């Protein structure tokens, strides 16, 4: 069999139904092979390789499957780097296949040759270069196994052109295990007992959950633990969706622009139980003043995350799907009415100072918050919210009503502007029947706006909501608060977005006053097909609460 056919046959064997990519010289044999298998594997041609990889990420995040993308050598491959780094830091399972110049040309500065092994190494969980046809199947099998098992991550497989055109024997064998890589860690029951003892004696226990719950498919186990333990629970950015926000134990969101109570009370709990989260600096604020009073229990799969940032009292290594069950068995049922009341009281303060301003503004200008508020009225329970990076991301996260798992797709760790539009496309293409709402800012959308073309071509019914303040809003907010209002290069002269969307045959509507907002959002959801809604929002509004850089979680500001 020809190497290029092996690539496609391997992808089919791994049940990759949908892949994203962009052809070019060094990957052409694989594209030629795809032509023969179009009934078994669907390929989406994006308008830029960055679009392809973010689409694959969006697809992976909503489906739980491995996202796949294809690109050619040189610039095609280097255009994947941002997406690789993004997927790696957010633990998104991804396999990227890049073409490479023929093996005999490696290292000669051949046309479109770049050292992809070297360049991608710091941004991947694993990478490999394949120079012989017979090595293609095993490399792809190993790549998929590594991408999806353990803590998921990004894999890059660089295949030289000669390997794609040469012939060899092909018998696909999925990878099961290999000696240098451990994916399972048996939960240490003695540690579970220690953790349970701490929790059973606690007066103000507090649970923080992150994306590890979603990646470990432990949503039900988290719910059972919370119901029995009665412990208040807060979510990280990427943990949102793992627990319905309507659950009585749910107290809100953590981090720089999270909720007031969850941040502030981190420094008042006596036992802090962190589940599948990694104490990102945006969550902890000043580490020297983070939860110093608390005994800390960490349920975590990745051994390198344990004691990396926060020193734990008890660390239970393993999948939280298993450790949560054991911990649920070991704890006694309790309730914490006084402790819970503290959260609710602070929540009221946040409502008065922040939420009222955001959701029921008295000024004429629309706020980002009220747009999300209206979206909540029409969205389905399992609607996916895809956001870019900046003010709109934090506001959408704050006010979107998360009810189901895998409804949150955003660039968390890397903070990649331009992520949302292609990621929303990928999320939508996984399931046309599911609502996918893409909330973007006027800065970020212009970084990957060419993907409107892919939305046009695929007819993916993405609902794009552009919150336009003609600013790089988050940077402007920081300039206002920390740089003496010196608005250095943050104001944008924008194109006519409506004309632009219409040029791509996408139905578009612009709203700039409150009276027509609700109807416009309703129209957007009713419309059968992609929709572009531009909402002109207050030009200089800020996101609060906020923990300023260098501040402690207890110094979270309401204004």
């Amino acid at each position: 069999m020809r190497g290029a056919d092996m690539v496609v046959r391997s992808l089919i064997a791994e049940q990759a139904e949908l892949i994203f990519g962009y052809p070019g010289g060094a990957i052409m044999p694989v594209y030629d092979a795809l032509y023969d298998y179009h009934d078994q594997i669907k390929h989406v041609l994006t308008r830029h390789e960055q679009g392809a990889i973010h689409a694959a990420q969006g697809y992976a995040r909503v489906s739980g499957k491995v996202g796949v993308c294809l690109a050619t050598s040189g610039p095609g491959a280097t255009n994947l780097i941002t997406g690789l780094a993004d997927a790696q830091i957010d633990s998104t399972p991804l396999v990227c296949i890049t073409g490479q110049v023929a093996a005999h040309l490696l290292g000669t500065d051949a046309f479109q040759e770049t050292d992809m092994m070297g360049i991608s190494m710091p941004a991947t969980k694993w990478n490999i270069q394949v120079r012989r046809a017979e090595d293609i199947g095993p490399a792809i099998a190993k790549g998929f196994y590594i991408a999806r098992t353990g803590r998921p991550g990004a894999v890059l497989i660089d295949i030289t052109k000669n390997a794609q055109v040469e012939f060899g024997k092909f018998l696909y064998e999925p990878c099961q295990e290999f000696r240098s890589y451990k994916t399972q860690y048996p939960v240490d029951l003695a540690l579970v007992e220690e953790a349970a003892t701490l929790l059973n004696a606690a007066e103000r226990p507090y649970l923080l959950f992150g994306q590890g719950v979603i990646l470990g498919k432990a949503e039900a186990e988290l719910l059972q633990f919370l119901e029995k333990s009665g412990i208040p629970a807060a979510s990280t950015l990427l943990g949102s969706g793992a627990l319905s926000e309507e659950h009585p134990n749910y107290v809100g969101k953590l981090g720089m622009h999270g909720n007031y109570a969850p941040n502030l009370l981190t420094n008042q709990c006596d036992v802090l139980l962190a589940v599948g989260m990694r104490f990102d600096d945006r969550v902890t604020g000043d580490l020297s003043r983070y939860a110093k009073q608390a005994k800390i229990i960490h349920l975590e799969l990745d051994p390198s995350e344990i004691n990396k940032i926060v020193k734990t009292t008890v660390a239970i290594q393993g999948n939280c799907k298993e450790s949560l069950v054991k911990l649920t068995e070991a704890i006694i049922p309790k309730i914490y009415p006084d402790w819970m009341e503290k959260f609710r009281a602070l929540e009221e303060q946040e409502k008065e100072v922040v939420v009222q301003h955001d959701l029921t503004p008295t000024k004429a200008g629309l706020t980002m918050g009220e747009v999300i508020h209206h979206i909540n009225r029409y969205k389905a329970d399992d609607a996916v919210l895809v956001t870019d990076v900046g003010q709109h991301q934090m506001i959408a996260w704050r006010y979107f009503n998360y009810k189901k798992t895998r409804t949150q797709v955003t660039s968390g760790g890397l903070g990649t502007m331009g992520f949302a539009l292609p990621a929303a496309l990928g999320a939508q293409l996984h399931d046309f029947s599911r609502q996918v709402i893409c909330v973007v800012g006027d800065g970020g959308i212009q970084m990957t706006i060419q993907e409107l073309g892919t939305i046009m071509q695929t007819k993916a019914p993405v609902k794009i909501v552009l919150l336009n303040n003609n600013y790089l809003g988050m940077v402007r907010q920081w300039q206002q608060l920390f740089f003496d209002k010196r608005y250095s290069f943050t104001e944008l002269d924008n194109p006519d977005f409506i004309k632009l969307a219409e040029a791509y045959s996408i139905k578009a509507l612009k709203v700039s006053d409150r009276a027509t907002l609700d109807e416009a959002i309703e129209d957007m959801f009713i419309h059968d097909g992609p929709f572009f809604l531009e909402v002109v929002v207050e030009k200089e509004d800020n996101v609060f609460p906020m923990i300023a850089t260098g501040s402690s979680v207890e110094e979270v500001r309401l204004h």
Partner: protein
Amino acid sequence: MKRYTLFVIAENFIGILNRITIIFTRRGINIDALTASESRVPGVHRITIEVTATEETVVHLVKQIEKIIDVIKAFHHEDSGVVYQELALYKIPSSRLDGGLEKIIRDHHAKIIAAEPDFVVLELTGHKEKTRELLELLKGYGIVEFARSGRVAVAKRMLTIDSFVN
């Protein structure tokens, strides 16, 4: 800050050394010395890295190294936990050979491993302090070249490579 020896047992795949060293690069940590060689198990490499850092940093580094997919095991020891040696070579112009130099060679248990018309090469095996001491003395004899290997070390702990590989 202390001196530590990191041991890495890894599959002998292309790029493994790069994967390990970028962990240090990213954190701005200098590698004092590094040696890589085959282990006694075919296909398995052992890499010995000498680094000066805090215990906390070293623990973090070891975890990051062990996270590399093709790394089988990584661990670290302080100097007291390892038996180690370094090898140094010194090239001296033959014209400078005299009774004084011969005495130095004898006193330091160095060996002459090559004698050419123009130069002689001395070899000394020992810890850094010892090989450096000889270097200082040879500076008075017009030394033209000096090379020292990285640390070659074995741990004192009685763990065999088989317990990681199987």
